């Protein structure tokens, strides 16, 4: 039964936000948690695709989404947003990337800005679950089920061309064989029975 804080306006995140934040285990407590997340968010903005432990990935995703949505909402002329970007991005050249590359990329998007995928798990291992966190629109090949149309890959184009050539050669061979057969028949048989046969065929089709 709390009253909503009305001092600040925030855009709605397009991801599901759990009611409680996760505690990331560390010695320094809440400060250490934020430090961990800062490193992760910086890495995400820098490399655009990173592999993480599941809970840290899920937590960092929310912060990355918030950072990008703040940047989109206020732009780079807004002092508090600049401060936030300065705090969250440990490498300062990434602030330019955030405002000049990511904001134009995600401005007109209707969906969330990041993607979180489960990484394959080694069977019988005691390692924690891994996830892959990536920014949408990154330059890397697509992860997950590959539904891309691969007909135009060079190997497939060459294979198709080879198949086509092979078939054409085969058809030519068949055609040659058939022509040879017909020539043989013409020389051996008389024409009369063949005409009778044709006439009977015509009658059948009329009836």
């Amino acid at each position, binding site marked *: *039964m*709390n*009253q*909503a*804080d*009305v001092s*600040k*306006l*925030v*855009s*709605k*995140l*397009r991801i599901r*936000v759990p*009611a409680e*934040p996760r505690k990331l285990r560390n010695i320094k407590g*809440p*400060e250490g948690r*934020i430090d961990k997340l800062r490193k992760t968010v910086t890495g995400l903005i820098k490399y655009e695709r990173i592999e993480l432990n599941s809970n840290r990935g899920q937590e960092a995703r*929310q*912060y990355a989404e*918030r*950072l990008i949505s*703040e940047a989109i909402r206020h732009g780079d002329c807004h002092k508090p947003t600049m*401060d*936030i970007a300065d*705090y*969250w991005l440990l490498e300062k050249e990434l602030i330019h990337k955030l405002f000049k590359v990511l904001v134009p990329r995600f401005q*007109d998007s*209707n*969906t969330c800005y990041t993607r979180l995928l489960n990484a394959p798990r080694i069977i019988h291992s005691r390692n924690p679950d891994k996830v892959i966190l990536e920014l949408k629109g990154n330059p890397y090949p697509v992860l997950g089920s590959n539904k891309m149309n691969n007909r135009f890959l060079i190997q497939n184009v060459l294979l198709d061309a080879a198949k086509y050539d092979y078939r054409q050669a085969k058809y030519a061979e068949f055609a040659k064989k058939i022509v040879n057969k017909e020539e043989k028949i013409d020389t051996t048989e008389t024409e009369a029975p063949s005409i009778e046969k044709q006439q009977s065929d015509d009658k059948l089709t009329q009836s």
Partner: protein
Amino acid sequence: MSLAIRRTTELIGAAKWFLRRDSRVLSTLPEKVEEPPAELTSKRYRRRFFQNEAILETRHAYPEFLPDPNPNWRNSLREKLERADMLERRSQIDIPEFYVGSVLAVTISDPHAQSKTNRFVGICIERKGCGLRAEFTLRNVVDHQGLEVRYDLYDPTIQSIQVLRLEKRLDDKLFYLRDALPEYSTFSFDMDPEILPEGTPIPVNPVQVKLKPRPWLERWERQELKGVSNIEEHLKEKDRVRRELRKTPWEKYDLMKQYRKTIPIEDQSKIWAEVHNQLQQLQMARKKSARKRTFTTPKTQLG
């Protein structure tokens, strides 16, 4: 006749279309991106944007219309019904706009009082809760005894709420008045209402109170209060060290903590679009009745 009817239905259809488009402006997931000419979009977008900004400004005056930000306690149907009930109650009695730091006079019906009513005057030190359970606390000092009364804003036993002095203070909560000198929370019961000229922004009272010496009810030195002047006088070296250790400068940048405390714009604008018109009408009605108010000569202040 039929032509006229058809025309009206067309008009209604157009209005509906417009409304639907308008309400879709801030929804998170529009079905598809519309691409009208650039000049048009910018104009239309700007107008909508400013309309929306104006609607969103309502949040400061009526924060209890926003639901609880904790998603575990959300229930869209209950919230909607509560908002309807709140508007219903507001049409019955005049619940004015007030803030923490305003001085209010509240009259409730009290079966045990001789006049069957009880009037209390005090400074609002806290506003809390949302929906029908919104509440506020008034503080006053009567006969050298500090008194605090917590009222439910939509309590049916409340007969009237009158704002005697409309202003804000430097802090969101004024619990430190409990440890301050009594003169800062003493207000006379026959105070005259101070009427602000129309259209003025809500004034912020920059008064800084003086705290009594320790012991205190809370560790005020750790709360970064702006409205207290003499906190350093009462601190020992030990307290200063501990205050430094307890500081949490990273919380200012904790984006998700802020997000979990608020209602996002998209949700807010839906709620305000629902209640803004009726609130506006109630406000207009209040202004009209205020203009009709008969002029009375102010009481002579003795002493």
